[in-house]
């Protein structure tokens, strides 16, 4: 089989580092393949991608050994401009790579650099924009596009040159489920219909794994596992070992000790029914939801109470929030969901006292809230912008110092460092830490003053599931001790697994305020707000008309209700 990309014994150490970022990598990518490269944050995935179009070694300083060939051509012998005709690379954040003012100009850039005539460029640009679903938006300002549209524009800016290989670095990490679905559909179509070789790096495996043909897992600069998608489904324990996310169907089969048929819900249901002799849905006794999915209905006074709150940026502008009414109780773990622009971040800012409502009132313990208070902490979407001290220790102490609580240092600091896994990093420069570590420092700093309510704006964006779970566990512990968490997220699986209450927002209104189990079974609401329920909820519904939201629940049900005795 012809190899489109061949990597032989490659190691690479960045000029500024002593440890290699890649170590003895061997990888072959056949023509027309759809390869998923995954691994925890900082394992070297992005570094490997940079080799495919020669950014390493031509544009990034460091020491490289071994050989990388693209269509039989050594990357050492070909400049980036030449390799970019074969390999198109799309990076993670569209905001950081879009360079032009209009969509057409952005897409035309690569063709202009390749010396194409202006008349021909115009046609190609239109075609590329149509392929990604942006037809007719040639003259649109790039700033007027949504996050998903920007990501598709960045893809069109690569596709227009008709590369043979498409390399994508976490393309869906910042998209809501609907945006991610649309982008993945375009990529899958390019692979299937046009035979384009696709190499994708992604943490959201549950969304990409069903589409790919091959999978490669990296850990600490090494390629630790590679195989076909089917092999990956059958060796799910490898993913678990490296802290990676699995599709719910595969994870359930792993827990039940049966061979997974793949990511298909219906096939998995059939396999479980065959293996355990279970009856089809509707013929089994109705499953009663467990304690974990029952909403907490506290009787005491709410910590935060929001009455008829409205918000608009300009006096005659549109309402970002429309007469919101909400009560937040002690010990709740609340997920705030909805499409981009639904008003989630604005609501968090109003609860925190950062923004003032233009109508209605926010109360904390029954008293009107008009400014920032230490009782409510807020972690912004980009934690990097919340880190401004020279060491982790100073970062954690900063807020204590500002709130004149430095006396609590001895009591609080060791606990935070221990709980957030920051031991031996106390004297490190926070902005030089890995993404997951920076995120943990930002949350730890917010928790240093022990707020009663902690608000987090999109904490799951760009984080691998290991980091998400680590932080979620800490927050669960904080909730157990009486704290309250409200977080915005697009990740339905995280919301289902950790939240005990979900608020769904749409165009400034709260459309639903319910438990995860109820929400993910309500198809009308899900359809209205473009949320896809977790796979496991669909599976539970099909398997036993249940309303489970976690894999553990379904596994427990199958074990309890299996006709045979094969349950493990």
């Amino acid at each position, binding site marked *: 089989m012809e190899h489109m990309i061949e990597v032989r014994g490659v190691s690479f150490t960045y000029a500024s580092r002593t440890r290699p970022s890649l170590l003895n990598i061997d990888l072959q990518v056949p023509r027309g393949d759809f390869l998923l490269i995954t691994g925890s944050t900082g394992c070297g995935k992005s570094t490997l991608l940079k080799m495919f179009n020669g950014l390493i070694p031509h544009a990034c300083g460091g020491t490289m050994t071994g050989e990388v060939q693209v269509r039989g051509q050594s990357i050492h012998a070909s*400049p980036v*401009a030449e390799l970019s005709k074969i390999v*198109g690379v799309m990076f993670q*954040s569209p905001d*950081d790579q879009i360079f032009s003012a209009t969509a057409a100009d952005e897409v035309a850039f690569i063709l202009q650099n390749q010396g194409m005539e202006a008349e021909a460029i115009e046609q190609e640009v239109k075609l590329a924009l149509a392929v990604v679903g942006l037809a007719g938006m040639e003259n649109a300002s790039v700033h007027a596009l949504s996050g998903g549209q920007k990501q598709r524009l960045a893809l069109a800016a690569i596709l227009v040159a008709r590369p043979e290989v498409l390399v994508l670095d976490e393309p869906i990490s910042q998209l809501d489920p609907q945006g991610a679905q649309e982008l993945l559909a375009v990529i899958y179509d390019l692979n299937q219909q046009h035979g384009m070789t696709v190499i994708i790096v992604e943490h959201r495996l549950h969304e990409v794994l069903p589409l790919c043909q091959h999978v490669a897992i990296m850990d600490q600069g090494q390629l630790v596992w590679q195989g076909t998608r089917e092999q990956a489904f059958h060796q799910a324990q490898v993913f678990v070992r490296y802290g990676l996310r699995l599709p719910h169907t595969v994870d359930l089969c792993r827990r039940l000790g049966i061979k997974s048929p793949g990511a298909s819900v219906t096939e998995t249901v059939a396999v479980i029914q065959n293996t355990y002799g279970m009856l089809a849905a509707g013929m089994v006794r109705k499953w009663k939801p467990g304690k974990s999915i029952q909403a907490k209905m506290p009787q005491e006074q709410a910590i935060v109470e929001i009455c008829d709150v409205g918000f608009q940026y300009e006096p005659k502008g549109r309402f970002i929030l429309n007469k919101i009414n909400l009560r937040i109780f002690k010990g709740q773990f609340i997920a705030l969901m909805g499409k981009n622009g639904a008003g989630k971040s604005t609501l968090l800012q109003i609860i925190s006292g950062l923004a003032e409502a233009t109508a209605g009132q926010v109360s904390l313990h029954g008293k009107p809230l008009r400014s*920032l208070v230490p009782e409510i902490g807020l972690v912004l979407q980009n934690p990097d912008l919340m880190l*401004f001290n020279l060491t982790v220790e100073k970062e954690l102490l900063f807020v204590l110092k*500002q709130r004149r609580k430095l006396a609590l240092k001895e009591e609080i600091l060791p606990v935070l460092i221990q709980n957030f896994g920051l031991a031996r990093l106390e004297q490190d420069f926070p902005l030089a830490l890995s993404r997951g570590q920076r995120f943990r420092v930002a949350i730890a700093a917010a928790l240093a*003053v022990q707020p009663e309510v902690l608000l987090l704006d999109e904490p799951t964006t760009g984080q691998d599931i290991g980091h998400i779970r680590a932080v979620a566990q800490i927050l669960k512990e904080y909730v157990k001790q009486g704290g309250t968490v409200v977080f915005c997220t697009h990740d339905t699986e995280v919301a289902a697994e950790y939240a005990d209450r979900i608020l769904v927002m749409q165009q400034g209104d709260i459309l639903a305020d319910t438990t995860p189990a109820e929400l993910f079974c309500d198809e009308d609401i899900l359809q209205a707000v473009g949320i896809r329920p977790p796979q496991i909820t669909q599976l539970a519904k099909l398997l036993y008309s249940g309303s489970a939201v976690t894999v553990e629940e379904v596994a427990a049900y199958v074990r309890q209700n299996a006709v045979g005795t094969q349950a493990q």
Partner: protein
Amino acid sequence: MYDRTLWEPRPNDSLIYRMDGRTKIILLGFIALAAVIIDSPRSLLLLFWLVLFMHCWTKADFARWRILILFLLLSMWGGMVSQALFYSQEPRTEIACVIAPGTPVLGSLTGGVYLYREGILYGAQQALRSGIMLAAGLLVCWNTDPRQLLRVMVYWRMPYEFAFMLTTGMRFLPVVFNETAVVLTAQRLKGFKPMHSFSVNKMIQTAFQTLLPILARVLRRAEMLALSVESRGFGRGINRIKLLKWPVGEKLVCLVAGCLLLGLVVLKTLNSLQYNGLVYFPAWNYLYSFVVIWI
């Protein structure tokens, strides 16, 4: 001010937005040079109005006018006040006394501080110069795709690194303003109140703590942008920049502007020669008068 859309170029149908990058850079350069060459306050004022008229032509919105006026007023006020206080050339006319020479300590230390009429006029002249450059610079920033400028600069054989640095600066200006607002918000969230104290230490600490995360982010973003641009075939090795045909009308405008600038230089030189008694033609007196009044 922290809203990034205020600083980003907005596609519009004005002639200035649609102009070729070469025309924009050349005219910007000519306006800047003219502002340096011309000394006459009335001509400087005319040039200033011309640039503001061009802003009107692009239909700049209220928020942009507000920013422009704020920047212009600050720079003008700063220039005029500093020159009014510290003007050192003769003759100079005192119009007010700020610190009398007899004032204890300060009076003896400074020998008295006055406002000078000539200083105000000179300050106004300098302020107009800087105002013209500022307004023209913002006009180009708000109405030009950074990529257009980058391609022109490289086409003109400017070193790739330098061209990329200039355009990246322009590309990230809106982002920097936006992220400054986020950092200030984050500081507020952590209970930081820098304005509660005016100590030098506190101010240095605030500046450092505000700039540190912004700088780190901008460096990361700039690296990513550079990689993205290189991945799309643009880089050090590029040798095939093809620009769209330069419209004849715009070429003519540049030519006329170039001739005008050259005319300014010639007239200024002639006037300087006669002023210093080196070359004087009595028949050209009307020309010398024109230079004194208008240039």
